[in-house]
């Protein structure tokens, strides 16, 4: 028996890059990479050269120039004397508002509709599938326009509230006005000492949590059911109202009032925001409903039956057994629906809502003519928003994921 000889040391040959399967895939990946970089360099060089030929350049100086236009909905102070950069920030905040409201509302609508699509009740099931099919099969822009035009035509104009024979009136003891320019609500005015009332309110919310934890501990340790509903409601309202009365009403309300052309005072939720928010929520809600339905159907029927055998009621089976497991399947597609809402919110200009696309990608772009710069910046903003949403939702997904040991 011979001793095992050292394996013959192969010397590397150039042909091995193609013939040897160990290197071949690397070779092709490298070629592809070089080709992509070359193509990009060509396109980029072409862009710069053509711009130079047309006498244009890439410059972001316009962000510091005076914008000159007004924006109706603004979270931060802004007027026409401010810069294009600030106008873009105002637009960005408006995008974030509608995306945030849209995501929450769409989730609520979607979960309810998805669960009800599996209802044993024939009518409820059919109504929900009708909702899902109608809403997800018509483009969202059409929904935005339909909802907006119904809103402006079905609700009264502010001038209908005027005069002795007014054709419209305010709701809830003259505190809320629903007009075709939006909804006007009373606005809280924070007087001196109002922080104390807010503090009491926050403390009572913490109290509610502590109480519920105590009740749960009682149930688990001693099998005693402590009633939670009424104490919770009581804790929520009573201390804050007492504090408000004791302090001599530091928080007062500013009611909307018809003055001149419009309601003044109070807080206005503009019709454009409502229409966009509602349209995005109800459209995306239909997609989320299908995700939820798929998630629930993926949970084995044995789980439901086992829970039923333990004596759980249908509502509890859904909340305690099925939904928590279904959530693992629902969350990943839910992330892309959230991204869709954010991106679809760029249709805002259809109803005159000044979002990022309306300010930076709209008026600023047109007034300055800096199309390339504005569009690149716009892409960057949307990318950052979308990646942040995905990042946060992925953290949530990881925490909900089945932990394997």
């Amino acid at each position, binding site marked *: 028996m011979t001793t095992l000889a050292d394996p013959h040391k192969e010397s590397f040959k150039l042909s091995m890059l193609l013939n040897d399967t160990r290197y071949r895939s690397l070779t092709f990946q490298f070629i592809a990479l070089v080709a992509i970089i070359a193509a990009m360099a060509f396109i980029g060089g072409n862009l710069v050269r053509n711009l130079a030929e047309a006498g244009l350049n890439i410059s972001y100086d316009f962000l510091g120039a005076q914008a000159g236009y007004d924006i109706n909905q603004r979270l931060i102070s802004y007027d026409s004397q401010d810069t294009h950069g600030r106008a873009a920030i105002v637009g960005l905040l408006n995008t974030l508002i509608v995306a945030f409201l849209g995501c929450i509302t769409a989730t609520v609508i979607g979960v309810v509709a998805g669960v009800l699509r599996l209802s044993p009740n024939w009518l409820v099931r059919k109504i929900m599938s009708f909702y899902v099919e109608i809403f997800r099969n018509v483009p969202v822009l059409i929904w935005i326009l339909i909802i907006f035009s119904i809103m402006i035509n079905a609700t009264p104009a502010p*001038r209908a509230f005027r005069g002795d024979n007014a054709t419209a009136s305010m709701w809830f003891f003259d505190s809320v006005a629903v007009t075709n320019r939006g909804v006007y609500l009373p606005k809280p005015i924070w007087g001196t000492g109002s922080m104390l009332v807010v503090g009491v309110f926050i403390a009572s919310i913490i109290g509610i949590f502590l109480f519920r934890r105590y009740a749960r501990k009682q149930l688990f340790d001693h099998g005693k059911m402590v009633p939670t509903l009424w104490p919770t409601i009581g804790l929520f309202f009573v201390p804050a109202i007492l504090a408000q009365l004791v302090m001599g009403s530091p928080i007062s309300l500013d009611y909307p009032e018809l003055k001149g052309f419009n309601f003044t005072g109070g807080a206005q939720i503009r019709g454009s925001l409502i229409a966009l928010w509602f349209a995005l929520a109800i459209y995306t809600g239909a997609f989320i409903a299908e995700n939820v339905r798929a998630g629930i159907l993926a949970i084995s029927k044995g789980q439901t039956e086992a829970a039923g055998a333990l004596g759980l009621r249908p509502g509890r089976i859904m909340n305690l057994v099925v939904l928590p497991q279904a959530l693992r399947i629902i969350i990943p597609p839910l992330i892309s629906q959230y991204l869709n809402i954010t991106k679809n919110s760029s249709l805002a200009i259809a109803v005159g809502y000044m979002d990022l696309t309306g300010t930076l990608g709209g008026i600023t772009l047109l007034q300055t003519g800096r199309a390339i710069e504005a569009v690149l910046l716009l892409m960057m903003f949307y990318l950052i928003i979308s990646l942040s949403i995905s990042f946060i939702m992925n953290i949530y997904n990881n925490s909900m994921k089945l932990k394997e040991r």
Partner: protein
Amino acid sequence: MKKSVFLGALTVAGIIAGGASAATLDEVKARGKLNCGVTTGVPGFAEPDASGVWQGFDVAVCRAVAAAVLGDGNAVEFVPTTGKTRFTALASGEIDLLARNTTWTFSRDVDLKFEFTGVNYYDGQGFMVPTELGVASAKDLDGATVCIQTGTTTELNLADFFRSNNISYEPVPIETGAEAVQQYIAGACDVYTTDASALAAQRANFEDPSAHVLLPEIVSKEPLGPLVRHGDNEWADIARWTLNALITAEELGVTSVNLEELSAGTENPEVNRLLGTEGELGSMLGLDAGWAKAALGVAGNYGEIFEKNIGAATPIGLARGLNAQWTDGGLIYSPPFR
């Protein structure tokens, strides 16, 4: 991420690369059609009629240029553009000429690299309100909600006007004129503001035009005119002098009725030069001697075009006002043909 940025840049690069070519005249001749950018529909200025044929004051400019270059006023491809898309369409070479109620401003001329070839309508921004509001002046509009088309000089003028008068307003930005009218009619805004000519045109289409008034204030200068890209001066000359030919023809009394008769030769040397029976003006432009005659043959001179499309006898009912010939006290004035 890098990829999407570059794809976006690629699109834009493509658009700009298309705009770099120079000899628009040769291109138009080779194509046999003039690509002309117009509005998406403003009654009287540019709108397809019942049989789908584009009609209007701006459309007439397109047809005149097409007739001057190609000898046929119908050899035009009309490209409807919005306030947002018009400049990209022109810069990219998608259209050869933009005749679309576009205000001649410094930044559009200089910074956006366009060449305005004259003014075919002197306009100004006005306000329209329902008569029942009882508003007599734009200065009474404190707190009003104002419908406004985005992407125009209108929103800047509006901001300036309200700021300089120290009154407040709520702007409602809207993409197209049609949507603005819809919101205005529904009462979602109190005021609709845009160029006074467009207001008059829109009002003519309302169910009850008398229920709306135009306020007396004109808050801006809006010289509207056709424009072309920077860098092709021959093409710009053709567009400029075609418009001037229409204007000069009115001044000299050349109309669609007497065009044939006058083009046989007249006593007036300027008419002869205009109509090509004398001098070499046509060949200087790189066109036939009868270029101006062809342009005038489509719809007559400036005055005829005005009266037919937007004049006092039409539903739009605009008076000549500033747009009368300089000899009648207006601003319409053409440099001499010599």
